[in-house]
Protein backbone atom coordinates (compact mmCIF):
# COMPACT_ATOMS: atom_id res chain seq x y z
CA UNK A 1 0.00 0.00 0.00
CA UNK A 2 1.48 3.39 -0.91
CA UNK A 3 2.38 5.75 1.93
CA UNK A 4 -0.10 8.59 2.40
CA UNK A 5 1.08 12.04 1.33
CA UNK A 6 2.12 13.71 4.58
CA UNK A 7 0.12 16.74 5.69
CA UNK A 8 2.23 19.58 7.11
CA UNK A 9 1.89 19.76 10.88
CA UNK A 10 2.53 22.67 13.21
CA UNK A 11 4.69 21.75 16.22
CA UNK A 12 3.76 23.52 19.44
CA UNK A 13 5.84 23.27 22.61
CA UNK A 14 4.00 22.04 25.66
CA UNK A 15 4.90 20.72 29.11
CA UNK A 16 3.40 18.62 31.87
CA UNK A 17 0.58 20.47 33.58
CA UNK A 18 -0.47 22.35 30.44
CA UNK A 19 -3.80 21.72 28.72
CA UNK A 20 -2.29 20.06 25.62
CA UNK A 21 -0.29 17.70 27.82
CA UNK A 22 -3.36 16.75 29.80
CA UNK A 23 -5.21 16.15 26.54
CA UNK A 24 -2.64 13.70 25.16
CA UNK A 25 -2.86 11.73 28.41
CA UNK A 26 -6.50 10.97 27.64
CA UNK A 27 -5.76 9.15 24.36
CA UNK A 28 -6.70 5.50 24.33
CA UNK A 29 -3.95 3.33 22.87
CA UNK A 30 -4.43 -0.29 21.95
CA UNK A 31 -2.05 -1.92 24.40
CA UNK A 32 0.04 -5.01 23.95
CA UNK A 33 0.05 -7.11 27.14
CA UNK A 34 3.70 -6.36 27.88
CA UNK A 35 3.42 -2.60 27.70
CA UNK A 36 0.07 -2.19 29.27
CA UNK A 37 -0.53 1.48 29.82
CA UNK A 38 3.07 2.19 29.00
CA UNK A 39 2.47 5.41 27.06
CA UNK A 40 0.45 6.77 29.95
CA UNK A 41 3.03 5.66 32.48
CA UNK A 42 5.77 7.37 30.48
CA UNK A 43 3.71 10.54 30.26
CA UNK A 44 3.05 10.46 33.99
CA UNK A 45 6.54 9.57 35.17
CA UNK A 46 9.41 9.75 32.69
CA UNK A 47 8.51 12.85 30.68
CA UNK A 48 7.87 15.11 33.70
CA UNK A 49 11.19 13.91 35.14
CA UNK A 50 12.97 14.75 31.88
CA UNK A 51 11.40 18.20 31.62
CA UNK A 52 12.14 19.16 35.24
CA UNK A 53 15.48 17.54 35.94
CA UNK A 54 17.03 16.99 32.53
CA UNK A 55 16.61 18.83 29.19
CA UNK A 56 13.35 17.24 28.10
CA UNK A 57 11.23 18.96 25.47
CA UNK A 58 7.67 18.11 24.45
CA UNK A 59 5.74 19.11 21.36
CA UNK A 60 2.21 18.52 20.23
CA UNK A 61 1.50 18.60 16.51
CA UNK A 62 -1.56 20.21 14.99
CA UNK A 63 -2.96 19.54 11.55
CA UNK A 64 -4.36 22.38 9.37
CA UNK A 65 -7.78 21.92 11.03
CA UNK A 66 -6.25 22.53 14.46
CA UNK A 67 -6.53 18.93 15.66
CA UNK A 68 -3.76 17.65 17.90
CA UNK A 69 -2.73 14.64 15.88
CA UNK A 70 0.36 13.56 17.79
CA UNK A 71 3.12 14.42 20.19
CA UNK A 72 6.87 13.96 20.36
CA UNK A 73 9.53 14.27 23.05
CA UNK A 74 13.26 14.79 22.97
CA UNK A 75 15.91 14.88 25.67
CA UNK A 76 19.62 15.58 25.89
CA UNK A 77 20.94 12.93 28.25
CA UNK A 78 23.45 10.17 28.82
CA UNK A 79 21.30 7.05 28.52
CA UNK A 80 23.67 5.62 25.90
CA UNK A 81 26.88 7.37 26.91
CA UNK A 82 28.76 4.07 26.59
CA UNK A 83 28.44 4.62 22.83
CA UNK A 84 29.28 8.32 22.81
CA UNK A 85 32.48 8.37 24.83
CA UNK A 86 30.61 9.81 27.80
CA UNK A 87 29.17 12.70 25.81
CA UNK A 88 25.61 13.90 26.16
CA UNK A 89 23.44 12.85 23.23
CA UNK A 90 19.91 13.32 21.95
CA UNK A 91 17.31 10.72 22.83
CA UNK A 92 13.66 10.27 21.88
CA UNK A 93 11.90 8.95 25.00
CA UNK A 94 8.42 8.79 23.47
CA UNK A 95 6.26 9.83 20.56
CA UNK A 96 2.79 8.85 19.50
CA UNK A 97 0.11 9.59 16.96
CA UNK A 98 -3.39 10.27 18.21
CA UNK A 99 -5.27 6.96 17.69
CA UNK A 100 -8.05 8.90 15.93
CA UNK A 101 -5.58 10.21 13.31
CA UNK A 102 -3.39 7.23 12.50
CA UNK A 103 -2.41 5.88 9.05
CA UNK A 104 -2.06 9.39 7.59
CA UNK A 105 1.73 9.76 7.60
CA UNK A 106 1.82 11.88 10.77
CA UNK A 107 4.26 9.55 12.51
CA UNK A 108 6.89 10.20 9.89
CA UNK A 109 6.39 13.98 10.10
CA UNK A 110 6.82 13.83 13.87
CA UNK A 111 9.96 11.70 13.71
CA UNK A 112 11.46 13.99 11.05
CA UNK A 113 10.75 17.02 13.22
CA UNK A 114 12.47 15.40 16.21
CA UNK A 115 15.47 14.38 14.10
CA UNK A 116 15.77 17.94 12.78
CA UNK A 117 15.60 19.31 16.31
CA UNK A 118 18.37 16.93 17.34
CA UNK A 119 20.45 18.10 14.35
CA UNK A 120 20.03 21.72 15.43
CA UNK A 121 20.88 20.93 19.07
CA UNK A 122 23.97 18.94 18.12
CA UNK A 123 25.44 21.90 16.22
CA UNK A 124 25.83 24.03 19.33
CA UNK A 125 27.88 22.62 22.24
CA UNK A 126 31.27 21.13 21.44
CA UNK A 127 30.95 18.26 23.90
CA UNK A 128 27.66 17.02 22.45
CA UNK A 129 27.50 13.74 20.57
CA UNK A 130 26.20 13.70 17.01
CA UNK A 131 24.04 10.63 17.68
CA UNK A 132 20.31 10.38 18.32
CA UNK A 133 19.01 7.24 20.03
CA UNK A 134 15.67 5.68 20.76
CA UNK A 135 14.53 2.29 21.98
CA UNK A 136 11.56 0.27 20.88
CA UNK A 137 10.06 -3.10 21.73
CA UNK A 138 10.97 -5.71 19.14
CA UNK A 139 7.30 -6.66 18.86
CA UNK A 140 6.38 -3.13 17.82
CA UNK A 141 7.07 -3.75 14.14
CA UNK A 142 5.03 -0.77 12.98
CA UNK A 143 7.24 1.63 14.93
CA UNK A 144 10.44 -0.11 13.81
CA UNK A 145 9.37 0.20 10.16
CA UNK A 146 8.61 3.90 10.66
CA UNK A 147 11.97 4.63 12.31
CA UNK A 148 13.81 2.69 9.61
CA UNK A 149 12.08 4.73 6.90
CA UNK A 150 13.27 7.86 8.71
CA UNK A 151 16.89 6.67 8.61
CA UNK A 152 17.30 5.01 12.00
CA UNK A 153 19.38 1.85 12.12
CA UNK A 154 18.84 -0.97 14.59
CA UNK A 155 21.95 -1.64 16.67
CA UNK A 156 20.91 -4.97 18.13
CA UNK A 157 18.04 -6.50 16.17
CA UNK A 158 19.82 -9.87 16.32
CA UNK A 159 20.44 -9.62 20.07
CA UNK A 160 17.53 -7.73 21.63
CA UNK A 161 17.81 -6.59 25.22
CA UNK A 162 15.41 -7.77 27.89
CA UNK A 163 13.61 -5.54 30.32
CA UNK A 164 12.75 -7.44 33.51
CA UNK A 165 10.50 -4.58 34.62
CA UNK A 166 8.35 -5.08 31.53
CA UNK A 167 8.00 -8.88 31.61
CA UNK A 168 11.36 -9.41 29.91
CA UNK A 169 9.96 -8.22 26.64
CA UNK A 170 12.83 -7.83 24.16
CA UNK A 171 13.61 -4.35 22.91
CA UNK A 172 16.04 -2.91 20.45
CA UNK A 173 18.07 0.27 20.33
CA UNK A 174 18.06 2.37 17.18
CA UNK A 175 20.24 5.33 16.26
CA UNK A 176 20.84 7.91 13.56
CA UNK A 177 23.65 10.39 13.04
CA UNK A 178 22.67 14.01 13.42
CA UNK A 179 25.67 15.40 11.56
CA UNK A 180 25.14 16.59 7.98
CA UNK A 181 27.70 15.58 5.37
CA UNK A 182 29.62 18.64 4.15
CA UNK A 183 28.76 19.75 0.59
Amino acid at each position, binding site marked *: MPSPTPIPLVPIRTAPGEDDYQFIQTWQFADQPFYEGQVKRLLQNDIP*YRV*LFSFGLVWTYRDPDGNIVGFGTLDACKEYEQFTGGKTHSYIPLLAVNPAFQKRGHGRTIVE*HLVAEAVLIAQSPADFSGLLFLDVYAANQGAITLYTKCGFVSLNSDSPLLDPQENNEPYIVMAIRTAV*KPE
Partner: protein
Amino acid sequence: MPATLDLPAVRRFTDDLTERLRRCDNGEGSICSNLDQMINHYVQLFGELRTCVNDWARSVFTSRIEFDQEVENVLKAESRYILRRAKQIAAQGRAMGEECFALEGLNALHFHIADFDYLLENWVSPRRSVSPAPRLRTSTEVELHMLERLKRLPMLSSDWKPTDPEQFAFFKKQRGE
Protein backbone atom coordinates in the same frame (compact mmCIF):
# COMPACT_ATOMS: atom_id res chain seq x y z
CA MET B 1 28.25 18.68 45.65
CA PRO B 2 27.69 15.81 48.07
CA ALA B 3 29.66 12.68 47.25
CA THR B 4 26.65 10.51 48.02
CA LEU B 5 22.98 11.38 47.86
CA ASP B 6 21.73 9.90 51.11
CA LEU B 7 19.98 12.04 53.73
CA PRO B 8 23.02 12.90 55.92
CA ALA B 9 25.11 13.88 52.88
CA VAL B 10 22.34 15.99 51.36
CA ARG B 11 21.70 17.64 54.74
CA ARG B 12 25.38 18.52 55.07
CA PHE B 13 25.30 19.99 51.56
CA THR B 14 22.20 22.12 52.16
CA ASP B 15 23.42 23.21 55.63
CA ASP B 16 26.64 24.40 54.05
CA LEU B 17 24.71 26.21 51.31
CA THR B 18 22.47 27.90 53.88
CA GLU B 19 25.49 28.99 55.88
CA ARG B 20 27.17 30.45 52.78
CA LEU B 21 23.96 32.30 51.94
CA ARG B 22 23.75 33.64 55.47
CA ARG B 23 27.35 34.86 55.42
CA CYS B 24 26.73 36.46 52.05
CA ASP B 25 23.57 38.19 53.24
CA ASN B 26 25.48 39.56 56.23
CA GLY B 27 28.27 40.79 54.00
CA GLU B 28 30.84 38.66 55.84
CA GLY B 29 34.19 38.12 54.18
CA SER B 30 35.11 39.57 50.81
CA ILE B 31 32.83 37.41 48.60
CA CYS B 32 29.75 39.58 49.07
CA SER B 33 31.13 43.00 49.91
CA ASN B 34 28.91 44.67 47.33
CA LEU B 35 25.67 43.91 45.49
CA ASP B 36 27.41 42.85 42.28
CA GLN B 37 29.41 40.21 44.13
CA MET B 38 26.37 39.15 46.09
CA ILE B 39 24.42 38.54 42.88
CA ASN B 40 27.27 36.52 41.39
CA HIS B 41 27.53 34.47 44.58
CA TYR B 42 23.80 33.69 44.46
CA VAL B 43 24.16 32.62 40.83
CA GLN B 44 26.92 30.23 41.84
CA LEU B 45 24.95 28.76 44.75
CA PHE B 46 21.86 28.35 42.55
CA GLY B 47 24.00 26.39 40.11
CA GLU B 48 25.35 24.12 42.84
CA LEU B 49 21.89 23.44 44.21
CA ARG B 50 20.43 22.72 40.77
CA THR B 51 23.23 20.26 40.04
CA CYS B 52 22.58 18.47 43.33
CA VAL B 53 18.80 18.32 42.74
CA ASN B 54 19.32 17.00 39.20
CA ASP B 55 21.89 14.40 40.30
CA TRP B 56 19.61 13.15 43.06
CA ALA B 57 16.61 12.96 40.71
CA ARG B 58 18.67 11.16 38.09
CA SER B 59 19.98 8.66 40.63
CA VAL B 60 16.41 7.77 41.54
CA PHE B 61 15.30 7.70 37.90
CA THR B 62 18.14 5.38 36.92
CA SER B 63 17.58 3.09 39.92
CA ARG B 64 20.95 3.86 41.48
CA ILE B 65 19.27 4.90 44.72
CA GLU B 66 15.82 4.51 46.27
CA PHE B 67 13.54 7.51 46.50
CA ASP B 68 13.70 9.08 49.98
CA GLN B 69 10.93 11.51 50.89
CA GLU B 70 13.13 13.18 53.50
CA VAL B 71 15.84 13.98 50.96
CA GLU B 72 13.22 15.48 48.69
CA ASN B 73 11.85 17.60 51.55
CA VAL B 74 15.32 18.91 52.37
CA LEU B 75 16.09 19.80 48.75
CA LYS B 76 12.74 21.49 48.24
CA ALA B 77 13.08 23.50 51.45
CA GLU B 78 16.53 24.68 50.42
CA SER B 79 15.25 25.58 46.95
CA ARG B 80 12.44 27.66 48.47
CA TYR B 81 14.85 29.38 50.83
CA ILE B 82 17.39 30.40 48.20
CA LEU B 83 14.61 31.44 45.82
CA ARG B 84 12.98 33.71 48.39
CA ARG B 85 16.28 35.40 49.23
CA ALA B 86 17.34 35.64 45.58
CA LYS B 87 14.13 37.46 44.67
CA GLN B 88 14.96 40.11 47.25
CA ILE B 89 18.52 40.45 45.96
CA ALA B 90 17.27 40.65 42.36
CA ALA B 91 14.82 43.41 43.35
CA GLN B 92 17.67 45.37 44.91
CA GLY B 93 19.72 44.77 41.79
CA ARG B 94 16.97 46.07 39.52
CA ALA B 95 16.59 49.19 41.65
CA MET B 96 20.33 49.83 41.61
CA GLY B 97 20.52 49.10 37.90
CA GLU B 98 17.89 51.73 37.18
CA GLU B 99 19.72 54.31 39.25
CA CYS B 100 23.32 53.97 38.23
CA PHE B 101 25.01 50.97 36.69
CA ALA B 102 24.39 47.61 35.04
CA LEU B 103 24.93 44.54 37.20
CA GLU B 104 26.55 41.81 35.15
CA GLY B 105 25.09 38.82 36.94
CA LEU B 106 21.52 40.06 37.13
CA ASN B 107 20.37 38.31 33.95
CA ALA B 108 21.83 35.01 35.18
CA LEU B 109 20.14 35.51 38.55
CA HIS B 110 16.79 36.13 36.85
CA PHE B 111 17.31 32.97 34.80
CA HIS B 112 17.84 30.90 37.98
CA ILE B 113 14.87 32.54 39.69
CA ALA B 114 12.62 31.63 36.75
CA ASP B 115 14.08 28.13 36.68
CA PHE B 116 13.51 27.47 40.39
CA ASP B 117 10.07 29.08 40.27
CA TYR B 118 9.10 26.65 37.50
CA LEU B 119 10.75 23.72 39.25
CA LEU B 120 8.93 24.26 42.53
CA GLU B 121 5.61 25.05 40.92
CA ASN B 122 5.67 21.91 38.77
CA TRP B 123 7.65 19.60 41.03
CA VAL B 124 7.13 15.89 40.53
CA SER B 125 8.83 13.39 42.77
CA PRO B 126 11.32 11.38 40.73
CA ARG B 127 10.57 7.69 40.39
CA ARG B 128 12.34 4.79 38.70
CA SER B 129 12.07 5.18 34.92
CA VAL B 130 9.43 3.30 32.97
CA SER B 131 11.60 3.10 29.85
CA PRO B 132 14.50 0.69 30.04
CA ALA B 133 17.31 2.91 28.72
CA PRO B 134 18.07 4.78 31.96
CA ARG B 135 17.90 1.65 34.12
CA LEU B 136 19.48 -1.17 32.20
CA ARG B 137 23.08 -1.76 31.27
CA THR B 138 24.10 -3.85 28.30
CA SER B 139 26.73 -6.57 28.49
CA THR B 140 30.20 -5.81 27.14
CA GLU B 141 29.76 -8.30 24.34
CA VAL B 142 26.49 -6.74 23.16
CA GLU B 143 27.96 -3.27 23.57
CA LEU B 144 30.89 -4.08 21.30
CA HIS B 145 28.53 -5.44 18.71
CA MET B 146 26.39 -2.30 18.89
CA LEU B 147 29.44 -0.08 18.70
CA GLU B 148 30.49 -1.77 15.48
CA ARG B 149 27.11 -0.93 13.95
CA LEU B 150 27.30 2.63 15.22
CA LYS B 151 30.64 3.15 13.53
CA ARG B 152 29.04 2.30 10.20
CA LEU B 153 26.16 4.77 10.58
CA PRO B 154 26.24 7.26 7.72
CA MET B 155 26.00 11.01 8.17
CA LEU B 156 22.89 12.75 6.88
CA SER B 157 23.22 13.53 3.19
CA SER B 158 24.61 16.92 2.21
CA ASP B 159 21.25 18.03 0.80
CA TRP B 160 19.40 17.19 4.04
CA LYS B 161 17.33 20.04 5.43
CA PRO B 162 14.48 20.36 7.94
CA THR B 163 10.99 20.45 6.45
CA ASP B 164 9.57 22.58 9.26
CA PRO B 165 9.93 26.27 8.21
CA GLU B 166 11.10 27.49 11.62
CA GLN B 167 13.70 24.75 11.91
CA PHE B 168 14.82 25.43 8.35
CA ALA B 169 15.34 29.14 9.12
CA PHE B 170 17.38 28.25 12.21
CA PHE B 171 19.34 25.63 10.25
CA LYS B 172 20.31 28.22 7.62
CA LYS B 173 21.32 30.68 10.31
CA GLN B 174 23.50 28.06 11.98
CA ARG B 175 25.23 27.40 8.67
CA GLY B 176 25.71 31.11 8.08
CA GLU B 177 23.55 31.10 4.94
